[in-house]
């Protein structure tokens, strides 16, 4: 096991190390940017074709009207959960190991929400009329349908996205001020000056900052829970077998945290290498994250079992049929892969040696994410292919390359946004690492003092 953050690290060194990430990352950074751009442009090409030709090119059909877009939408929304939600929870719980990693986790939230938003656009049959979903006053007094879970979704996601951005931004102001103070030319200077809002670290600013940050964190926790509950409502509020499940909201929230944690591990490992953050994103932090992920994995597995069990023991034959279809029908390979990735693979995280083994954890986190993506697909698709009405069953619906292309492209989009962000805004919170180091050394000093006092008392005898 590696070392944790050195307590005697100079604060100036922290600034220097982190600011360096804004300037000279490893070459891999550029490789990632290039690949992401390539992948994204594949998605853009597919979307242009789909936009011009019609949704039919995605190979969806009439019972099977939702496809990978909605599945990926949930996936990205889910991914967004760990960042802000964990950051807020850990902040309230004063878990200081959050400090070096929360910034990028929150950025992950923001960008995965933006990616999810992309899927709304991709999914809609008439994107150009999307403003109909906004509650703007019109001459005819026509409003969106406030009863629709999709509208709740829009509202919740908007709230979540803007609150997350504000949370991220407020939390970055002191760091942006550092950037402003240390970078003296070009557009960056202007940008940081603008964004830092004239932050000087005065006592008044810090005082209000602390309360504000805490308050938003308090809001974000119920908000994040509500967001994924509402996404779950898209399904749970419907009447369809396999969707109309009471346990969906907590199940979705657990799934969201799960995939988010897995993504944090993935990005942790990438950033650690790309930006040479070995000093800050230390293995003990990884270990803590891995343990947390494992716990959430077990919660998810439990809720998964609950869902199956409640279907199994109910008298809802239709829902039961859908479950059987998932396990034995054409979707069976994916369904079992989901069970494997989601409930079996996490046990690798129990092995102590592997908890800090970077390659192993990287592979595991990718598998977990794959499992969680499959989970979303397995929620959406089988209900369409095996609903109430046997005549319209359609077990062989397979997404077209266009559909896959857009889903693929979304990963490029996310990576692109995320990597560009990390190059502009410090992805490790400098001021908070300083706080962490400071508090730890204070605590250490206190301890030492206590020991010395004890010794002194002993000596006096």
């Amino acid at each position, binding site marked *: 096991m590696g070392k944790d953050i050195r307590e005697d690290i100079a604060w100036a060194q922290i600034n220097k190390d982190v600011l360096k990430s804004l300037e000279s990352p490893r070459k891999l950074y550029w490789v990632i940017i290039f690949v992401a751009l390539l992948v994204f442009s594949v998605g853009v090409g597919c979307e242009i074709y789909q936009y011009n030709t019609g949704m039919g090119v995605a190979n969806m059909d009439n019972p099977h009207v939702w496809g990978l877009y909605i599945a990926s939408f949930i996936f990205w929304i889910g991914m967004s959960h760990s960042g802000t939600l964990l950051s807020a929870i850990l902040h309230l719980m004063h878990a200081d190991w959050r400090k070096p990693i929360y910034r990028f986790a929150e950025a992950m939230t923001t960008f995965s929400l933006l990616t999810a938003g992309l899927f709304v656009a991709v999914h809609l049959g008439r994107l150009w009329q999307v403003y109909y979903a906004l509650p703007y006053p019109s001459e005819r007094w026509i409003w969106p349908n406030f009863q629709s879970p999709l509208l709740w979704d829009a509202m919740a996601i908007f709230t979540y996205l803007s609150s997350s951005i504000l949370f991220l931004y407020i939390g970055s102001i002191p760091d942006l001020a550092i950037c402003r103070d240390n970078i003296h030319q070009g557009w960056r200077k202007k940008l940081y000056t603008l964004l830092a809002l004239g932050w000087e670290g005065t006592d008044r600013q810090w005082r209000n900052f602390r309360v504000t940050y805490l308050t938003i964190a308090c809001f974000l926790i119920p908000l994040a829970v509500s967001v994924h509950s509402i996404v779950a409502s898209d399904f749970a509020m419907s009447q369809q077998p396999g969707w109309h499940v009471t346990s969906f909201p907590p199940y979705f929230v657990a799934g969201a945290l799960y995939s988010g944690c897995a993504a944090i591990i993935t990005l942790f490992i990438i950033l650690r290498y790309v930006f040479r953050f070995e000093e800050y994103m230390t293995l003990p932090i990884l270990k803590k994250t891995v343990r947390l992920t494992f716990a959430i994995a077990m919660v998810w597995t439990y809720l998964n079992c609950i869902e199956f069990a409640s279907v199994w023991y109910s008298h809802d*034959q*239709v829902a039961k*049929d859908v479950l059987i279809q998932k396990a034995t029908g054409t979707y069976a390979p994916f369904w079992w892969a989901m069970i494997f990735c989601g409930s079996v693979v996490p046990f690798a995280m129990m092995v102590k040696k592997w908890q800090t083994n970077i390659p192993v954890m990287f592979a595991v986190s990718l598998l977990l994410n794959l499992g969680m993506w499959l989970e979303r697909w397995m929620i959406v698709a089988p209900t369409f292919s095996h609903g*109430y*009405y*046997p*005549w*319209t*069953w*359609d*077990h*062989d619906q397979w997404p077209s390359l266009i559909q896959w292309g857009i889903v693929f492209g979304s990963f490029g989009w996310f990576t692109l946004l995320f990597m560009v962000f990390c190059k502009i805004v410090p992805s490790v919170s400098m001021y908070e690492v300083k706080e962490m180091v400071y508090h730890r050394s204070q605590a250490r000093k206190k301890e030492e003092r206590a020991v010395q006092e004890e010794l002194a008392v002993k000596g006096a005898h």
Partner: protein
Amino acid sequence: MTENDFSRRDFLKVLGWGGTAVALSGCGNTSIQDGQETVTSYVTLPSYVTPSISNYFNSTCAQCDAGCNIMGRVREGRVLKAEGNPNSPINRGRMCGLGLSGVQAHYNPDRVREPLLRTGDKGETITWDKALGLINEKLNGTKGTEIAFVTGGMSGHVQALLGNYMDELGSKNHFSYEAISPAVLRAANKKAYGESMPRYRIDKARVVVSFGADFLGAWVSPVHFSQQYAQFRKGSRPEGRGVLVQIEPKMTLTGANADRWIAVRPGTEGVLALGIINALGKAGLSIPADIAAVSHEYTTERTSKETDVSAEQIEKLAALLKERTPSLVLAGGAAEGYAHGSQNAAAIALLNRVLGNVGKTLEASASVPFPQIAPTVGSRSSLIALNDGLAAGKYKVVFSYGVNPVFSAPASMKFKDNFAKADFKVAFAQYMDETALAADLILPLDSAMEDWATVVPEYMAAPEGAGSNAYAQMSFRQPMMEKVFPDTRGVGDILLALLKQRTADKYKEFEDFYSYLRSAVLKNKVALGGKAGDDDEVFWNETLSKGIVPLKGIAGSVSAKASAAGLKLPVPTDADPSYPLRLIPAVSASMRDGRNANEPWLQESPDPLTTIVWDSWVEINPKTAAKLGIVEGDIVEVTSKSGSIKTQAYLFPGIHPDAVSVPVGYGHEAMGRYARGVGANVFGMLDSVFDKETGELALNETSVKISKTGQRVIIVKEEGPVGGSQAGKPKIAVQVSADKVDLSKEV
């Protein structure tokens, strides 16, 4: 916004055309195709046109030979939809899918638009004058016996005009050909009841036993019979709910609606009929001696063995027939398409006599008092005669109108080659179909919605009430709108022009077919229901607006004279091991013989039984398929002695294990974008076996073998992966046993 753009633009165009189109309807050679007519303002519209309100013009459907009376819904000069004429005794305001698709024949983008002349392998567009002149030139010096005219079933004034033309040419070679025709039925009916097309009264019967007569799908006059069927099924009828038993090796639409569908071994329908008579006798019904003499040999055991129908089933059926009278026994294509088809039909007809149905559920029909316009019915035997003549080089000039023999003749007849032997072939065509492609001169026809004609149906349905036994009718076909393409012509106009070439003086008073028809109708005003003193114009307009002209027909009579004398049914033999399966070409309600294959609604409308669209298929019993290792979607080769086709296999419970079935009408190589290349043409592979009495092609006498090609496709069909299963859902398509419901009080 794109979506509005389309509809608005088109809407304006239509408004622009509207006035002119309606005002000029029926005269002159203008059309709406190029949209260059004078735009007429709403102010000057005819008084009967109100923008946005539809006008209805009565006419007659031309999609099949039943002759249903329709109303064309016309809005601003465009016909939009065919609806049934409620005053029609035939269809009583109802329509079938095929009839509804008539508008797509009218507006079809693949219609022939100008006269075409073939030179070598190329075609060139020529003028009508040149085209008609060319015909004149070719006919000069050609003897009457060297001229042949092949048409489908015909009737009315076009037929009269054609008769005149043939007379002027001195030719007796008018061949009336229908690929799918009830010719054996006609002959057998004539023999058994004294009338070739008596009126069937399904609505009066308590039990209908149909030996392969698909009266709800494609048999004789399906929309009419569907009306009767609806009555027949009503529990509130004095007779109670009727029971339908369908006996056929391949389930038809009617079979799918039967209370009991009995899969009989192909070709043994006659045996089963005699077996039932025998069982009826055993059950105590008195059987006339001449019939008993034949039927007593057909013991239940023997019948059961030969027909593959259980003894218990035969006895149950006999008991039902004995108990519930009157009944009606029908014989249809599935029973008649054999070398012994007439014998089968005769044996089946005996049942009606035994059960005393003749005169009760089989009524006399009436015929029109004008023999020139009475229907000439088509048959396949006339094609054989034509083909023989062509093969012998007897015919130099051949006209074809409304038929596609190059497509629908069995390959073994080599019709296409023989057709080529004629020097000059003229096709009156709406599409560039296979026959038009083989012709030298192609004359583009008006659609049935642009043309004038009169129609006399072969099956003469009658309204209820007094005088119905002498009821006959003629109905009008009239243009509902301006021509879609300017250079097409009505068949009557063409014939009139051709007649004028021969004998100009006789026809010079008729400017066009319209004036010929009008004067012919007015000449017979009294016989057509008018009074001698009626104003011509008023009478004509009234008659036209009704569309149906009831006539005091010549009442026929039916008698139970079916006799068993001379009845000889072959003993079923074991199948040829190299061709173990019997091929049953299936006639579907929408595709029929394939003449309407280019109407996209029909291609997209699923076959009711298999739900397959846009392709042909071969139906195989799951047991047979299991034996052959065939699964759904396998591309199989169906091979007969005379040819083979490749198509997709569909496992179908509604077919006898010894039979396979392929729908006819698919597999066009020409005709248009919606028909070409869709499916395989089963006509081509039929063996040349004929009914021994009528000489009609025996459609079901082809034996085939089936082999897998190794390819497999996903069948494009409406049903899902669970087929016709309701997957245990309690209440989707619910069926209930008749003794569990009380239908008598239903409203």
